[in-house]
């Protein structure tokens, strides 16, 4: 029977997961690499933008300082060459300067030698700041100076540019401009570096800040520090950092989606690979099953051929059997017809005399022969067909039962028969069929001793070489050993029908029964001295 369980799904074998796992890892690694590249590229873009912005901011700052220096320088040159002019003109002129230069908080001119000074301040500047400016301006300088930035006492970061001057008309002293860092940078950077957090540092001190505050550790690699070269060898550091909103805008989530899709694809491919493995395995199993089936088919065919041949043999045997039966049945029936016809012809118009009676007796005898043949055939059929029931059989008792049965059927006047039954081994076999064996052997012995002197039938038995052997011997007509091969043949007879009645079935049936018990039969005989029929059954532990 084809084994179905072979193709049913087994428990998952860890070894089966190796290839799917490899597939998943490959796809996942590829996705991860792609994700990394994309993310790095985006970051690089953001960083590049930041750098460019920083550079632009830096340039703008430097330009703003240059502008301050340039204008203040022009002012000094004017004063040096043409003098300060009237107070009113000066005030008006300086007010324009205050408006045009972003972050300019005050302009002070002090001539320490003549103790003259002029000043102007942007609206909102305190008197104290002006006084500090005036005091500061009195300090002599040898050249152009940038002072600060520094925190004023009010807390605002500021720086001063101081330029010494000396004019032809005796104008000398210091031109000092104070700038408010916050206002300067607010104005300068108001339209620049949008989306970035800016802070300006000078000497470890933060002097300006714009935009929302972010933690220092927020994506530190996006921080770009620009060095702003101030005039007179001074430096500011301006720090650019993209705001989270700006970064989020640039860093789209596409790479993350790609990574997720890649991992999902990996899982799917792994599942597909696993299923594929299973299919391959199942198809292998199926192929093996197919081969087994084909093999079975070949075996079955050869078995069919064997059986067919056996069947053909059986049919041939059956045909031969049928032929023999019809042949043997035809003779007595034909005789009945023949004698009936003779009776009809000879006694058409006269009463039945002794001869007529004899014809009727012959008809009866033929009818009896036909009946006997049919009965034997039935018995033979039973011997070949019936299922064997094995049981211990007391063969001695069985022999005596048989003898009683045979004696009852024996006709009067045939002469006494002396029966001797010795101790017999207990047999293992079918009681009914072994009874049939004895009926035929003892019955035969009785038949073939008819007309002999001192009829004597002896049944003996013994256990020899793991076999239980039984013998029925008589002192009757015996037979010629030349024809011993025919003794057990079906429908074979060694004597003419009218010498000894018989059908040629009995001994054949004996042979068949013994053979079905796994035993064997044989016979010995001598003309005029008697015959001995023997059979042996397989030995068993109960035989004794």
């Amino acid at each position, binding site marked *: 029977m084809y084994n179905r369980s072979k193709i049913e799904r087994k428990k998952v074998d860890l070894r089966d997961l190796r290839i799917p796992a490899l597939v998943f890892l490959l796809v996942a690694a590829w996705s991860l690499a792609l994700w990394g590249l994309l993310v790095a590229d985006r970051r690089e873009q953001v960083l590049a933008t930041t750098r460019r912005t920083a550079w632009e901011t830096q340039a703008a700052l430097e330009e703003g300082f240059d502008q301050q220096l340039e204008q203040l320088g022009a002012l000094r040159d004017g004063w040096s060459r043409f003098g300060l002019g009237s107070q009113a003109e000066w005030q008006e002129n300086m007010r324009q300067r205050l408006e045009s230069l972003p972050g300019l908080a005050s302009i002070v001119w002090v001539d320490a030698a003549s103790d003259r000074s002029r000043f102007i301040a942007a609206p909102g500047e305190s008197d104290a700041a002006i006084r500090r400016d005036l005091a500061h301006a009195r300090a002599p300088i040898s050249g152009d100076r940038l002072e600060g930035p520094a925190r004023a006492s009010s807390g605002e970061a500021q720086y001063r540019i101081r330029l010494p001057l000396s004019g032809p008309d005796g104008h000398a002293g210091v031109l000092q401009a104070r700038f408010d860092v916050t206002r300067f940078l607010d104005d300068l950077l108001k339209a620049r570096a949008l989306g970035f957090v800016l802070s300006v540092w000078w000497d470890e001190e933060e002097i300006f800040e714009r935009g929302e505050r972010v933690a220092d550790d927020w994506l530190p690699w996006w921080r770009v520090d620009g060095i702003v070269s101030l005039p007179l060898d001074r430096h500011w550091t301006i720090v650019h950092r993209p705001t989270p909103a700006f970064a989020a805008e640039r860093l789209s989530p596409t790479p993350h989606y790609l990574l997720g899709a890649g991992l999902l694809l990996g899982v799917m491919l792994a599942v597909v690979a696993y299923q594929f493995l299973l299919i391959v395995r199942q198809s292998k199993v199926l192929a093996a099953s197919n081969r087994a089936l084909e093999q079975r088919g070949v075996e079955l065919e050869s078995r069919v051929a064997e059986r067919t041949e056996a069947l053909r043999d059986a049919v041939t045997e059956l045909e031969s059997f049928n032929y023999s039966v019809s*042949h043997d049945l035809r003779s007595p029936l*034909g*005789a009945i017809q*023949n004698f009936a*016809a*003779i009776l009809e012809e000879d006694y058409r118009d006269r009463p039945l005399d002794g001869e007529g009676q004899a014809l009727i007796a012959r008809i009866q005898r033929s009818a009896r022969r036909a009946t006997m043949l049919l009965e034997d055939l039935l018995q033979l059929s039973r011997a070949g067909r019936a299922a064997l029931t094995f049981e211990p059989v007391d063969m001695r008792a069985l022999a005596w039962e048989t003898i009683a049965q045979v004696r009852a059927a024996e006709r009067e006047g045939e002469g006494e028969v002396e029966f001797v039954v010795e101790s017999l081994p207990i047999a293992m076999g079918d009681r009914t069929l072994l009874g049939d064996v004895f009926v035929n052997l003892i019955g035969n012995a009785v038949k073939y001793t008819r007309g002999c002197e001192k009829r004597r039938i002896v049944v003996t038995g013994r256990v020899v070489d793991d076999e239980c052997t039984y013998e029925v011997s008589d002192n009757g007509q015996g037979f010629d050993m030349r*024809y011993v091969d025919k003794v057990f043949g079906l429908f074979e007879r*060694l004597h*003419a*029908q009218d010498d000894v009645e018989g059908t040629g079935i009995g001994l054949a049936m004996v042979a068949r029964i013994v053979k079905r018990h796994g035993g064997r039969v044989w016979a010995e005989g001598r003309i005029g001295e008697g015959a001995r029929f023997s059979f042996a059954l397989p030995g068993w532990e109960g035989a004794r």
Partner: protein
Amino acid sequence: MSPRPAILLVEDDRDEVDVVLRALEQAGFGGLGIEIARDGVEALAALGLGDGESTNGGGVRSPPRVVFLDLKMPRVDGWEVLRNIRAHPRTSEVPVVVVSSSDRREDIARSYALGANSFLVKRFDRTRPGGYIAEAARYWLELNRTPQ
């Protein structure tokens, strides 16, 4: 020389023998001598082909003019007898009519192959039991009318 029976009837069934004998006598062949053999062994003995031939002091008998031979008999069957008849020069020319209740093609073919002159299937004739044997006897006796 012992009287020579013209017909040898080989048949193990005594009823059949009686019917055939009656038919042959009715046909007028009773006076020619009819010998009965009840099986193959007796038949061979009657033809002088048996075991005891060499020790048979009665001398060699001439063969019958026709043999009616049954096939199925105890001990030695009809084919064996037929083979012996054809094998022996003295009897090889004797007409042999096989009489059998078999009408099987292979039995008929085998009989002719072994040298049978004719093959008759046993018939049970309501009007003349054994009459077909008598008719066959008439034909073969006429054909084999050897001078005495």
